[in-house]
């Protein structure tokens, strides 16, 4: 078989891979992208986890379910009276599928525009920077690619629990949880992290009684404590029953229900659900990509080991996104893709890992960037903080969305903003302001000296900055 030569072969067309491929093409390289994703109709679909079973479909359903919840609970307050409110799950799913389809088509279009060779199939690396493509599950090599550079962006998959195996109709992973054909009356979620909270929110709003079982003793440990405490209270009030210190012992599907046995501080507990979602994290897809002969180092958690520039132990082979260390976030993968493409082209690009925002798309949303107050205290960094509750925001009141707070953590002496934490409606949008400010090395005073439009939720950023200096205008300091 003749080998097709390319400057760059990208493995995976998710947010890491497709962005890397497009950037390489922009920089004048010949690019091939190998992707094995098949959607639930069995058709190739670009965009990886993010577009197909992650970010996008979940945001679509979150939007839909949020509107449904507003219609059911909040419209009356506005004087909008609705009779006969119904949720048409089929229509919701169809809309979600349409959004996903349009976006994956979009990537197709971008690949064509950038003249990127798209090859569907499973990729396996061979020595000499060769990429062999076969059908998934098959050993027959359909195509051989010869690459100058290889970018591995094969992503991650949901962690599977032996004690709660995926069972059709009863036990689902995050992908399956986006495909329910009806609203389960009772729903259990193993794991109260971002994914568990988002999926739990969707079905809770649509009518499920949701219980989240979290093995850790703290809620959202990566978030600032003040934020996670406020969020916890809110979610409980919304009807999400979050149980901490709940360690899964066993599950069994019996009498058309999922029986779950877990252990908490009081001992073993039993609970039944119509359906169960397992959302305990994701693991890198590093198996099946290459054998030992490639000498690509893997760490003990199966991530491909890379340095700050995403170079693996083999020169010319890079790895980005969920398959390497760092937050498993689409935007992190994309920026690593850009960095690698540019470094191949000879530029001195870097990713600033200190200023990557995290977002949880519940309502209100949770978003943060930089250090938490507790992390600074633990590291002995003297800090001062400013907090502004959304209840004091005129815009929030007008919107009827007063649950939440904005918090800034600044260095005690230099006033440099070290961390920024938001729990509020549109936190995902607001956080961008903080990321930009921190990229520019802003101090809390810089934000205090910046003019924010009124009336906006973003003004809370301004007030939080004033609060750092004990001179917020709209609250007692």
């Amino acid at each position, binding site marked *: 078989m003749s080998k097709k030569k390319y400057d760059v072969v990208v493995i995976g067309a998710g947010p890491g891979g497709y962005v890397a491929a497009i950037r390489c093409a922009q920089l004048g390289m010949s690019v091939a992208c190998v992707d094995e994703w098949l959607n639930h109709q069995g058709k190739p679909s670009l965009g990886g986890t993010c577009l197909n079973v992650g970010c996008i479909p979940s945001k679509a359903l979150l939007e839909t379910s949020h509107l449904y919840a507003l219609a059911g609970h909040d419209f009356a307050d506005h004087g909008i009276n609705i009779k006969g409110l119904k949720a048409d799950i089929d229509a919701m799913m169809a809309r979600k599928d349409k959004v996903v389809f349009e976006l994956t088509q979009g990537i197709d279009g971008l690949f064509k525009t950038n003249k990127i060779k798209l090859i569907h199939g499973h990729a396996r690396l061979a020595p000499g920077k060769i990429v062999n493509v076969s059908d998934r599950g098959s050993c027959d090599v359909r195509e051989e690619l010869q690459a100058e550079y290889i970018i591995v962006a094969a992503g991650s998959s949901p962690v599977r629990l032996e004690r709660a195996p995926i069972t059709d109709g009863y036990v689902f992973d995050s992908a399956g949880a986006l495909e329910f054909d009806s609203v389960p009356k009772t729903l259990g979620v193993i794991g109260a992290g971002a994914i568990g909270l988002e999926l739990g929110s969707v079905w809770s709003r649509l009518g499920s009684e949701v219980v989240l079982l979290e093995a850790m003793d703290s809620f959202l440990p990566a978030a600032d404590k003040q934020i996670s405490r406020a969020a916890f209270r809110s979610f409980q009030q919304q009807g999400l029953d979050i149980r901490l210190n709940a360690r899964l012992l066993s599950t069994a599907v019996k009498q058309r229900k999922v029986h779950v046995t877990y252990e908490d501080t009081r001992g073993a507990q039993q609970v039944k659900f119509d359906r169960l979602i397992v959302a305990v994290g994701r693991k890198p897809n590093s198996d099946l990509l290459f054998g030992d002969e490639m000498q690509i180092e893997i760490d003990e958690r199966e991530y491909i080991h890379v340095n700050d520039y995403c170079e693996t132990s083999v020169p010319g082979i890079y790895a980005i996104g969920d398959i390497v260390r760092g937050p498993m976030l689409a935007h992190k993968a994309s920026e690593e893709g850009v960095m690698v493409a540019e470094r191949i082209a000879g530029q*001195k690009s*870097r990713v600033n890992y200190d200023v990557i925002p995290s977002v949880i798309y519940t309502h209100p949303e949770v978003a943060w960037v930089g250090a938490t107050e507790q992390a600074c205290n633990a590291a002995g960094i003297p800090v001062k903080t400013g907090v502004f509750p959304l209840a004091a925001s005129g815009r929030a009141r007008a919107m009827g969305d007063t649950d939440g707070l904005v918090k800034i953590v600044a260095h005690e002496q*230099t006033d440099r903003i070290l961390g920024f934490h938001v729990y509020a409606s549109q936190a995902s949008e607001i956080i961008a302001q903080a990321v930009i400010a921190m990229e520019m090395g*802003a*101090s809390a005073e*810089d934000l205090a000296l910046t003019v924010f439009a009124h009336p906006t939720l973003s003004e809370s950023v301004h007030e939080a900055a004033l609060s750092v200096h004990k001179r917020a205008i709209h609250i007692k300091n």
Partner: protein
Amino acid sequence: MSVEIRVPALPESVADAVIAGWHKQAGDAVTQDETLVDLETDKVILEVPAVSNGVIEKIFFSVGDTVTADQVLAVIDDTASKAGQDAPASIDVEQAQASTVVALAGDDEQAELGRSQEIAISPSARKLMAEHHISDSAVQGSGRDGRVLKEDVLAYLKKQDQKQASEKVESPPAVRRGRVTEQPVLDLGGAGERIERRVPMTRLRARIAERLLDAQRNAAILTTFNEVNMKPVMDLRARFKEPFEKEYGVKLGFMSFFVKASVEALKKFPAVNASIDGNDIVYHGFYDIGIAVSGPGGLVVPILRNAEDMTLAQIEHAIIGFAAKARENSLAIEDITGGTFTISNGGVFGSMLSTPILNPPQSAILGMHTIVERPMVVDGEITPLPVMYLALSYDHRIIDGREAVQFLVTIKDMLEEPSRMLLGI
């Protein structure tokens, strides 16, 4: 090579000068013609520029010291071809960007520096720098792309405080923020507090006070008054305002008319244009009209030389130039020395009538005031007319009462009938 910066030649009547303020410190980089230090004389503030590029090696005098002409104020080392290569404190823009470790852009390689020369300064840094009078190029920025951050300014201030604390042997260890010389703040306490504040007179003000007293003591000053109907001049202005401005690019004001009228009157009454020098009366064959303007440091009187040769437009232009220079404290010694007659316009401040004081060695001064609509009698009828009171203070030693009065009447006549100025009668 060491280059000396000396006190410039001071004008005849000025014996010495006082260091009013330094723009640069030892170790700072300077460029040619950049102002190094301000010297305050009796009359005006002199700016002393650097005569070459370089780095200030040593400064010999501090703020408040008295210096005489030609003394060496400072020494510049001009061997550094690019200012600031060895300067510890002040770093110019290119240096700041070259040495800044932009943590994100570069790794082991040199960071790419194709950026523009403008330094980005974050808002809080800018505020701090303004409050502490720190120049833009004094602080090295450690932020992205060489941006000056608040923490950079704080570090700079800390360093300055440490430097000052170590330089002043007797000063206490407690660190004081800010400049050594405090700006006087006009805060004399709230209601009920009887606070006094004692501030020494600036040299300029002290000198002005001295000369005014001199004038009053040595001259026999009287003031004669008259009133003038300004309507004819105002009508003239109204009619020709636009074409005048179009032609000359300057507004047609009142001062030019007054200067012209004064010159014509002075021609008729030469004693008013004369001065006393010892036992002699000096009659001047030229008309140098001083225009009193209020500057930030006090009253200054720049001179219109040979006003008899100037057109109205030239007079207006010159006056605007003087006002601007006075505001910026940039009037030169030669601008304000001399003069044979002075016009003072108290009207701009709302004065209706006043008795101006002489500007020695001149023997007369004309005071203009506000124009007020008054009921006047014209041809037996009462008519509202815009009236200005004129005051002429004069030195009775050489000007008779009759001359003074008629001089003023002449001015009045010229203004009430402007064509007289054209005809010379």
